[in-house]
């Protein structure tokens, strides 16, 4: 695996052949730009990484990019911090490639000046005057246009007449800010009604509102994240931005059936039966008596059952949104690289790729 490169190699015959292999239908045929959002703490970066692996499988090439300067992708792919250059970070099942990029707004602005105005050399003068900082951290909307603009550029980039990337995944800002982030031309219109930056925003907007884009929202089954997901779907929809899937992350294994949950909540689990079973396997000692174990197991069951009932309610709320939902398991050992492949597999099996 190359440790660093500025851009992927040109057409690789093996890859192209593999891509034409038969593969199962995904829910997102035709989607090229996958935007992943979610409330803080729901694991959206992990899901973005897993989705990248899933979409790259069987010989495809995808780019996953982050825009918030957190180096979250480097963490989950277990690599050194990403520079502002596309880097091959993982091999997908069946021989695909995942590339990653951490977009730096200042670099993106200089690149934009270079591409559109051949003005890269003016950059240092602008930086001295504080104009680069102004444009990338302060000017309303400009930062977001640069970041989404970079995603557009990667999505549309071609080499030898075919796309460089089969899909681009954008690890985007949290749900609370996603509509404003993506709705760049409204944002920029507050500043510029006409002019080059406005036209650039219009081009970005055309891609974002098209069927080639899908915004996936990651949630966990708790009240606040679910509420934010519901609000996010409504906001995106009214802004005309296509909502993709709802991804339920960190789903716990239900150890108890519905009947057992009700009994656990009422405190009516059959203590005698539990006691007998524990005695059969010889659990219990002087230090920890069987009765103490039964007490603890019933207490734990109570907490688990209350949580499961809440999760059931929240799951129904998400399912009512009428977008495809995928469920990813809670990795009790933490989301390391092998966990990421496990999540990619789960996404793939459920039709995300």
């Amino acid at each position: 695996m190359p440790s660093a490169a500025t851009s992927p190699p040109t057409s690789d015959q093996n890859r192209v052949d593999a891509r034409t292999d038969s593969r199962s239908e995904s829910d997102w045929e035709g989607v090229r730009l996958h935007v992943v959002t979610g409330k803080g703490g729901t694991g959206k970066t992990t899901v973005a990484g897993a989705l990248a692996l899933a979409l790259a499988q069987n010989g495809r090439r995808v780019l996953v990019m982050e825009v918030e300067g957190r180096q979250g992708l480097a963490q989950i792919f277990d690599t050194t911090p990403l520079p502002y250059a596309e880097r091959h970070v993982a091999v997908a099942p069946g021989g695909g490639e995942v590339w990653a990029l951490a977009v730096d707004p200042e670099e993106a602005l200089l690149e934009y000046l270079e591409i559109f105005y051949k003005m890269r050399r003016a950059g240092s003068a602008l930086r001295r005057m504080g104009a680069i900082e102004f444009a990338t951290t302060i000017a309303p909307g400009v930062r977001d246009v640069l970041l989404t603009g970079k995603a557009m550029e990667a999505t549309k980039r071609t080499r030898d007449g075919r796309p460089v990337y089969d899909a681009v995944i954008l690890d985007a800002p949290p749900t609370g800010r996603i509509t404003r982030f993506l709705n760049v031309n409204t944002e920029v219109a507050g500043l510029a009604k006409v002019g080059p930056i406005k036209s650039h925003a219009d081009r970005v907007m055309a891609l974002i509102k098209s069927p080639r884009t899908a915004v996936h929202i990651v949630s966990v089954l708790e009240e606040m994240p679910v509420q934010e997901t519901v609000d996010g779907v409504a906001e995106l929809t009214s802004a005309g931005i296509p909502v993709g899937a709802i991804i339920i992350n960190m789903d716990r294994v239900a150890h108890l059936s519905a009947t057992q949950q009700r009994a656990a909540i009422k405190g009516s689990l059959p203590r005698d039966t539990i006691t007998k079973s524990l005695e059969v396997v010889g659990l219990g000692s002087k230090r920890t008596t069987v009765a103490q174990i039964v007490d603890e197991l019933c207490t734990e069951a109570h907490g688990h059952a209350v949580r499961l009932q809440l999760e059931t309610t929240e799951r129904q709320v998400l399912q009512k949104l009428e977008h495809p939902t995928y469920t990813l398991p809670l990795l009790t050992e933490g989301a390391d690289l092998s966990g990421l492949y496990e999540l990619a597999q789960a996404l793939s099996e459920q039709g995300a790729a």
Partner: protein
Amino acid sequence: MTTQLLDVDQLLKDESIHILVCCGSGGVGKTTTAAALGVRAAELGRHVVVLTIDPARRLAQSLGLTSLDNEPRLVAGVGDATTGGSLRAMMLDMKRTFDEIVESHADPERAETIFANPFYQALSTSFAGTQEYMAMEKLGQLHARLGHDNDWDLVIVDTPPSRSALDFLDAPRRLGSFLDGRLMRLLAAPARAGGRLSVRVVNAGFGFFSGVLTRILGAQVLRDIQGFVGAFDALFSDFRVRAEATFDLLQSGETAFVVVATPEPDALREASYFVERLDKEQMPLAGLVLNRVQPAVAIDLTAEAAVAAAQRLEARGRAHSLTASLLRLHADAVVLRERQRHLSERFTAAHRHVPVVAVAALAEDVHDLDSLREIGELLRTGDDLVHSPA
């Protein structure tokens, strides 16, 4: 040296502390912690204002916040005659706070010109960093009123859900120095050029700069910015002064920072950055609140033993399936707690001087004052995740 327990009650009762800042990455329960600390402080006899930035709907309702009116409102049902404490709460209205600064520093005519300027409108609603700036501005205002009336003696502030937890420290200075900086002087040059020499020198830079800006943004944006700079001129240096004053206040002995995290790698990493940054800026850190901790198990039964027993029971048929499930559930709980302990200890090993209090996860979300009281109680007692021998 073992990690000290963060004594929340002692912190809240300390009358030399007038500002408590809750910070941490998104989704760790910052706002809930700020609200729970507010309720507890009021019931310990303090007169408290909780400044929230963007509370979840039910949390806002539990504090009686139904509208965004930018003024502290008394929360009914907290504190009483015995303790003498009280609680007020407010949600930040960023645009209104910005407008108020303009109103208080410009004459009415000039204020109208500023309000009508498109660049100001964009600046005051969607300026990256405006929310952080205005949160700190509001904090400064609430602090300034401490001495004047006796409505409150403690301001608890929740920090904005920024891209980085550190933004609220940096944004005010960044905005302040931008408004008072070289760029603005260049932009303002045609409006206020004085002597002949300065006109020429300034215009050389301005010509280049305005050329670039016009090509990128368009001429109209530049005209708006110049209009704004012209009208805002006198207010610029004041913004920088205010940002500096707030920064000084945060470094003073009457402020305490509480870093909030969950026992997850990302949240703890952000917490580490934060602790290091506060150290560097000589800002007073009270300690770390570790939210959503998997509750301790009360018995000595390892995950391995529980899984082994569950497997044997599963082999014996359906009669034992309930107990087998309960044992597997127990094993999951033990594994999760051990993982959280391991992650938290990596933090405490690196920051031994930081007192910590761990708060066990509640099965249900916060929806009223009683659940905030319950969290307050958990904050007082603390879970022993990082304080007990493993």
